[in-house]
């Protein structure tokens, strides 16, 4: 072989020239790549979002009930002035917190078992088992719960058959969270919320636990930690970002859902329902917009904290 160079075919096609122009200007290429997605999200999504938020500075005309497109703080005054609004916000936030905690408690053993003890095959089964409900029809699953929790439903059928009806009544008699039946109590709403959003908690916790190297756990054991201590001092802190990542979803989804509380629970309004009603039947878009600011602010604070805790890496 000789070193006679195979002369490169002098390609002067438009594509080649375009390629070279971009190669020598990497910043331009990045800009071109980013422009379509940023235009989409920046204009369509953020644009809509800000349009909506701007509506909260309009107000309804008191007599005609028509929205007046003029800057006004009337909507916000009304929003802060009416204690019923605060009840809605607090009720929703408490529910979101309770659902998030319950989801974390249920998710952790599943995720921990999946990552640390399950064999490859078992792991795949569990993994798909978590994904399946996530992608199954949300509505039909909610309705399945109505059947389970209703007064003549599956839970009460089993309770009566097993002569445990007294236990169910005892639970339903608890003030505040109880009610005439599970499907018309806060407890029922809470169970269904927890059920529906549980996979969103499991998956990030699994992702976080996967990142805990086995050697770290062994090292902790070598250094004389009892299994309980290893769990508390090593595994929990390392898995925590996963829990935080999952809680972004459980928290946000609970705050914004309007279908579950309307199907299962007391007929008291939650945040999502309130926004839905104000925007729809009540036709009060400014107030609906004011209400949407609440979850945005809450999630803004939440995302900032989550980012500090490194939760984005576990998403």
């Amino acid at each position, binding site marked *: 072989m000789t070193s006679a160079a195979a002369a490169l075919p002098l390609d002067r096609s438009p594509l080649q020239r375009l390629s070279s122009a971009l190669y020598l200007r990497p910043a331009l290429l990045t800009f071109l790549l980013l422009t379509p997605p940023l235009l989409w999200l920046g204009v369509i999504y953020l644009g809509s979002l800000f349009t909506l938020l701007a509506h909260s500075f309009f107000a309804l005309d008191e007599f005609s009930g028509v929205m007046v497109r003029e800057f006004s703080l009337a909507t916000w005054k009304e929003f802060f002035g009416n204690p019923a609004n605060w009840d809605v916000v607090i009720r929703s936030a408490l529910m979101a917190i309770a659902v998030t905690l319950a989801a974390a408690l249920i998710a952790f053993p599943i995720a921990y078992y999946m990552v640390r003890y399950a064999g490859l095959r078992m792991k795949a089964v569990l993994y798909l088992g978590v994904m399946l409900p996530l992608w*199954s029809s949300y509505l039909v699953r909610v309705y399945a719960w109505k059947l389970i929790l209703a007064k003549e439903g599956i839970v009460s059928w089993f309770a009566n058959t097993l002569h445990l009806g007294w236990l169910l009544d005892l639970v339903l008699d608890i003030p505040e969270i109880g009610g005439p039946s599970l499907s018309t109590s806060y407890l029922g709403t809470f169970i269904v919320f927890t059920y529906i959003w549980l996979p969103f908690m499991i998956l990030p916790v699994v992702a976080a636990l996967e990142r805990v190297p086995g050697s770290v756990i062994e090292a902790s054991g070598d250094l004389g930690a009892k299994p309980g201590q290893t769990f508390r001092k090593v595994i929990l802190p390392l898995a925590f970002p996963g829990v935080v990542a999952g809680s972004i979803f459980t928290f946000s989804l609970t705050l914004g859902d309007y279908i579950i509380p309307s199907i299962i629970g007391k007929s008291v309004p939650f945040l999502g329902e309130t926004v839905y009603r104000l925007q729809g039947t009540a036709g009060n878009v400014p107030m609906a917009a004011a209400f949407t600011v609440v979850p945005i602010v809450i999630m803004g604070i939440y995302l900032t904290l989550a980012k500090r805790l490194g939760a984005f890496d576990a998403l």
Partner: protein
Amino acid sequence: MRSNVKAGWGLKGAALAGMLFLHIPLLIILLYAFSIEEKSFVFPIPGFTTKWFAVAFEREDVRRALGLSIKVAAIATAMALVLGTLAAAAVWRSRFFGREAISLLLILPIALPGIITGIALRSAIGIAEIPFSTWTLVLGHATFCIVVVYNNVLARFRRTNRALIEASMDLGANGFQTLRYVVLPNIATALLAGGMLAFALSFDEVIVTTFTAGQQSTLPIWMLSELIRPRQRPVTNVVAVFVIAVTFVPIVLAFYLTRDTHDVAGSVK
């Protein structure tokens, strides 16, 4: 971090209980697709029949809703594939100012409650006086599907050796040839996985859809109306079982396509 030690009974029990909690409602859905009672849910189930499967596929409204859902999901997925991949490529290839902000912006449509996205789009559609159509549905769906593709593709990019691209150019391939022969083959399975997850996500979405549908009826919207004003209850369950079956295939495929890497874990709704 798999351990050689056996799991304790407490842990096993808790994990099993959790999995049962997730799956019992699905079993009930399946069971009631065969119920002879069509007006209401009764437990225990009064009797079994398979006639609802035939009934469901005869019903024109089911077919129309299914057709619209597939169309919207297909277009939204295609747009999400393009936009999500572009964003992932940009974030991967350079450390520009504001990368974090881009990730946040992409996550926002799924991190903020769906009702906000829905109402925001609805009011924008109203102001722009756009008539409701397939495209208004696509508008909403593509917005929250982008992040699924983005997460999958970015995860793959991060495990791709940057030197591959340099090697290709070093061997004489220009940017477009490198894209065709090296970049796309390397991210193909991630694109497929992200695309299928985006499709499944769009196919089942109801909250944003209610606000951007107008009078149109996708499959989940059809279900919502059926559940509130039932005609033939088991038909709803048949459709639900069908949807579960249809979405389960892409999930299994996506899982196996990306399973060494747990990409799927990083792509929740």
